[in-house]
């Protein structure tokens, strides 16, 4: 193994890196993909990294993360490929597990499989080789390099990640679990790219986890493009349990065709500096999108949920509900922007952000925002921030429940509204368990959302029982 010298990731370094490695790194690109890369690089070159002067980044300060030194491996290593973390599974949850280590698709010698029903799952790099037409049609087509400089940077550089294709009319019978683990000897900078394509009336459940394996700092810039063709249905889960020194910019671009339907859940249990950019665009009428979020942060952690919903077509419904509990010095941002375009008659759009701040030093900046260019719409937005209800606390304690447990019951009740939206039952139980542990301060960062190999399952022992009996 060569020794590496970590360095500060600056736009200049990146441009230099791009020039030096372009011929070799991007040799496999289908032509359109390559053209998008060049355009993305140009766009990044113009904008650089976002700073706090930008409206969108006013309350999320990346300077500390960007001032760290990182190793940025442009190639996968032997270790990445053979890693043992991807072996086992959550009991009773029958899923197809695919792993990514440090952003690289873990192939275990099978970089890409095509199932009998036409489903393709595998490495994006491999998919560019085997299905260049299919990849080229979608990759970079939905993620706008103009809207986000991190997406631009990712589009310019990323060469691997996960590719999932569900053909027209096919319903994937197992949830696909995409587990993204970070483990490296040095601080690491990661850019991976995922592409998920659902054909007409296709159905899929994706559980997408971001996990750390240890306490090494990392900076990930991940872009996921998800396209739902007419009548497709996606049940999407993003679960984040990263260490306190990790920075994650996770951008998810959903494009919904006519009658397509999306259920999305962003559950953030731990992390250092997290930013979820979520873009939903309705490209056809009668689309439907529920986007839920739950974040439980403490220490100096920061979570920024930035959601942009573009009602570009009539008769669509979007609904956002994000709830957060912030403890100690944690800070949060909710920026919800719903755009109802001129032709989007009969739009229904709802936004709601609710927060509990447990200390005086915890902060939330919540800004739901509606931009409407059509009269015939039903829209609402709301935001609330408060403490645990002292009256409810008193009521619980008057019945003999201790202060700690009373707090726990109320916090769990608050979080449960989102946990209840999880449709896969074993996953719901797992998340329930993790949320309880998190609220009790007992969640380990190595406790991955679904993989738990080295130790047997230890369900959280709540001193009080909040399970449904």
């Amino acid at each position, binding site marked *: 193994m060569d020794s590496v010298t970590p360095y500060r990731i600056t736009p200049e370094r990146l441009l230099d890196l791009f020039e030096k490695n372009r011929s070799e790194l991007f040799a496999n690109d289908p032509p359109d993909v390559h053209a998008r890369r060049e355009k993305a690089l140009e766009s990044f070159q113009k904008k650089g990294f976002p700073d706090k002067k930008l409206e969108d980044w006013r309350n999320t300060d990346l300077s500390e993360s960007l001032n760290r030194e990182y190793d940025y491996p442009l190639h996968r290593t032997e270790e990445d490929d053979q890693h043992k973390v991807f072996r086992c599974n959550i009991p009773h949850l029958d899923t197809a597990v695919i792993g990514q280590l440090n952003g690289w698709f873990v192939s275990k010698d099978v970089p890409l499989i095509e199932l009998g029903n036409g489903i393709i799952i595998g490495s994006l790099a491999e998919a560019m080789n085997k299905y260049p037409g299919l990849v080229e049609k979608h990759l970079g087509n939905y993620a706008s390099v103009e809207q986000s400089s991190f997406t631009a940077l990712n589009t310019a550089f990323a060469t691997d990640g996960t590719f999932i294709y569900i053909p027209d009319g096919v319903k994937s019978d197992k949830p696909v679990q995409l587990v993204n683990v970070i483990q490296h000897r040095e601080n690491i900078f990661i850019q991976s790219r995922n592409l998920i394509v659902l054909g007409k009336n296709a159905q899929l459940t994706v559980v997408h986890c971001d996990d750390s394996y240890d306490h090494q700092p990392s900076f990930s810039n991940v872009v996921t493009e998800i396209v739902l063709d007419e009548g497709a249905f996606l049940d999407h889960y993003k679960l984040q349990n990263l260490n306190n020194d990790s920075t994650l910019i996770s951008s998810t671009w959903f494009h919904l065709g006519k009658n397509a339907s999306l259920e999305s859940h962003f559950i953030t249990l731990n992390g250092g500096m997290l930013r979820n950019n979520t873009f939903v665009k309705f490209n056809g009428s009668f689309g439907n999108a529920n986007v839920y979020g739950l974040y439980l942060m403490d220490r100096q952690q920061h979570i920024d949920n930035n959601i942009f919903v573009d009602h570009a077509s009539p008769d669509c419904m979007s609904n956002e509900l994000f709830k957060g509990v912030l403890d100690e010095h944690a800070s949060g941002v909710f920026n919800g922007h719903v755009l109802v375009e001129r032709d989007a008659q009969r739009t229904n759009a709802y936004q709601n952000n609710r927060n509990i701040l447990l200390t005086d030093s915890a902060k939330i900046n919540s800004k739901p925002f509606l931009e409407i260019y059509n009269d015939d719409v039903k829209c609402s937005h709301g935001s609330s921030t408060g403490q645990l209800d002292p*009256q409810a606390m008193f009521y*619980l304690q008057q019945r*003999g429940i201790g202060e700690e447990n009373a707090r726990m*019951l109320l916090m769990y*009740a608050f979080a449960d509204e989102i946990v209840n939206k999880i449709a896969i039952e074993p996953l719901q139980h797992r998340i329930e368990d993790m949320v309880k542990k998190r609220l009790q301060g007992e969640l380990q960062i190595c406790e991955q959302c679904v993989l738990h190999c080295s130790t047997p399952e230890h369900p959280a022992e709540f001193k*009080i029982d909040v399970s449904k009996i």
Partner: protein
Amino acid sequence: MLLKITNLHAAINGKEILKGINLDVNKGEVHAIMGPNGTGKSTLAAVIAGRDLFDVTQGEILYKRKNLMNLSVEERAREGIFIGFQYPVEIPGVSITNFMRTAVNEIRAYKGLDPLPAGEFLKMMEKKKKLVEITSDLTNRSVNEGFSGGEKKRNEIFQMAMLEPTLAILDETDSGLDIDALRVVANGVNKLRTPENAFVVITHYQRLLEYIIPDFVHILYEGRIVKSGGKELAIELEEKGYDWIKQQL
């Protein structure tokens, strides 16, 4: 003596609400406290329960010979003090079942008992539901959320039945109830009466006291107990009204 309140003064934000309360309650007794709105009845209940909103500025409360001021809200509850609230608070997301199971088991733990096994707990719930004639599946709903006034009050009595307190203070449990609901609530209380426990029933109306026969009636007026007597006092008060009390002062 179960409860002995001596010269109790309590204030909120510097404003004195209770101005020297004296009250003795023995096991096996039922006391009624009556009085016009805003005289401090609910405040008295809250102070006994240990609500920190109120400052006790003078006097003391002894309960089972212990000074209550040294006990937290939950410790008082675990020692057997129960308040049936005038305005039960809604707690979205916490089911009555989980709530009660947590409470029952914490009280058991305080007494050095093991948690009640789930099966036994559920049986106990069913039994107590019958006692207060709850037929609907109230118990899997969030605590008080979306309950009607009557349902909330009935739910308070249900919780009392579950926790089997030694001293239950029922704060206007009767107000807003129709006559059937009133009878259910009163029946519940009467069935729970033993020589070992005591009830303090706060009410506006003599009506409830036809069903729950008090041993003593106290009239609370502007932060003081101004008159005490037997159950006849309630009837007299009903006939003559509170002006009669004012004139006597």
